[in-house]
């Protein structure tokens, strides 16, 4: 058993870019929950942190769009956004090509993934890292699920992707921490930015915390788009976390923060 931690968190760029526009009474407890997540990850003494993200046309575009991608680069740069806009300084994160290659090789037994020796982190990965690895000390294995450009991978394949992560993590001697990052309902970067369907989010998080596979996979994309916006497609990352950990989830923080454009979420999952 070398999957040592599984958690979820939000990654919206506003979390850092528009920090000064948020109500501190909402913002600061969210930041505190991320700090607690950092400490919990650290306590599991991981050799590498895999971050499953839903990136936003930073590396992957419609010229050649993989449903799933895993990084096996030596290092990764980011943020790809203007650092002054995102308010996160540039960093070169450490990768592990050998570990990445072994993880990919095992995952390919059941899921087809692209692999990447080049990857520039966008806010989907660098915002979580800003809080979870502020000293830029961890070894990072980035992963991506296409949640931007339809046709999108079906939810049951996101589940299979999570299962493959678990199997791959358990097949290597390294201790792997897993953080899956996405939004629940949100309409980011549209005029509707800040709209949040809190009831839908809470219902989704109930399904997630119960690790109820059938109910997690019951959404059609049309329903998600209608009720949770185009940002809601990112539930794929949280679904992958549930498949990887197999246990129950604990939502450690949830609060809609409209200026951050998402219901801000931090959670962890029991690994069984």
């Amino acid at each position, binding site marked *: 058993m070398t999957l040592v931690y599984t958690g979820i968190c939000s990654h919206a760029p506003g979390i850092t870019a528009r920090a000064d526009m948020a109500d501190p009474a909402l913002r600061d407890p969210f930041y505190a929950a991320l700090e607690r997540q950092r400490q919990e990850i650290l306590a599991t003494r991981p050799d590498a942190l895999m971050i499953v993200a839903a990136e936003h046309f930073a590396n992957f575009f419609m010229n050649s769009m993989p449903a799933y991608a895993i990084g096996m680069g030596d290092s990764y740069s980011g943020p790809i956004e203007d650092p002054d806009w995102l308010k996160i300084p540039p960093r070169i994160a450490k990768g592990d090509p050998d570990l990445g290659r072994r993880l990919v090789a095992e995952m390919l037994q059941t899921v087809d993934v692209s692999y990447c020796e080049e990857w520039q982190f966008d806010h989907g990965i660098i915002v979580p890292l800003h809080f979870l690895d502020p000293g830029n000390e961890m070894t990072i294995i980035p992963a991506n699920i296409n949640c931007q450009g339809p046709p999108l991978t079906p939810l049951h394949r996101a589940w299979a992707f999570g299962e493959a992560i678990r199997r791959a993590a358990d097949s290597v001697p390294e201790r792997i921490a897993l953080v899956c990052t996405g939004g629940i309902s949100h309409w980011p970067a549209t005029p*509707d930015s800040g709209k949040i369907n809190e009831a839908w989010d809470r219902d989704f998080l109930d399904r997630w915390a119960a690790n109820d596979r059938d109910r997690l996979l019951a959404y059609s994309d049309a329903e998600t788009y209608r009720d949770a916006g185009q940002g809601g497609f990112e539930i794929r990352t949280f679904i992958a976390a549930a498949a990887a950990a197999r246990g129950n989830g604990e939502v450690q923080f949830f609060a809609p923060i409209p200026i951050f454009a998402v219901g801000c979420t931090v959670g962890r999952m029991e690994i069984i």
Partner: protein
Amino acid sequence: MSLYQLSKLLYVLNRDDEAKRQWREDPAALVDGFPLTGEERQAVLGHDIGLLYVLGVNGQILMHFAALCGIAWADYLRLMREGVQTYGPVRAGLYAMTTQFDERVAGI
């Protein structure tokens, strides 16, 4: 209509330092490297966020183009709304507007 090429241009501009340099020095030359319609070309060169939004440019690309043009967040949201008022509903893609013109869902 060449939404893919329009989006590709903004994607490249968002991620490539050389393209950013060209954008600063000779934006028309950069834009002419992509087969755009006259309307699309004018929207980019005119920093017309509202029209780019209505044409269907994905917001994840558009918001960074807006930042590159020095447009603050509240203005970015406003310009998209004004674009819909001026040019009509979003013509393609997933990033349609679902709220009313006078709503301020972000609180700004």
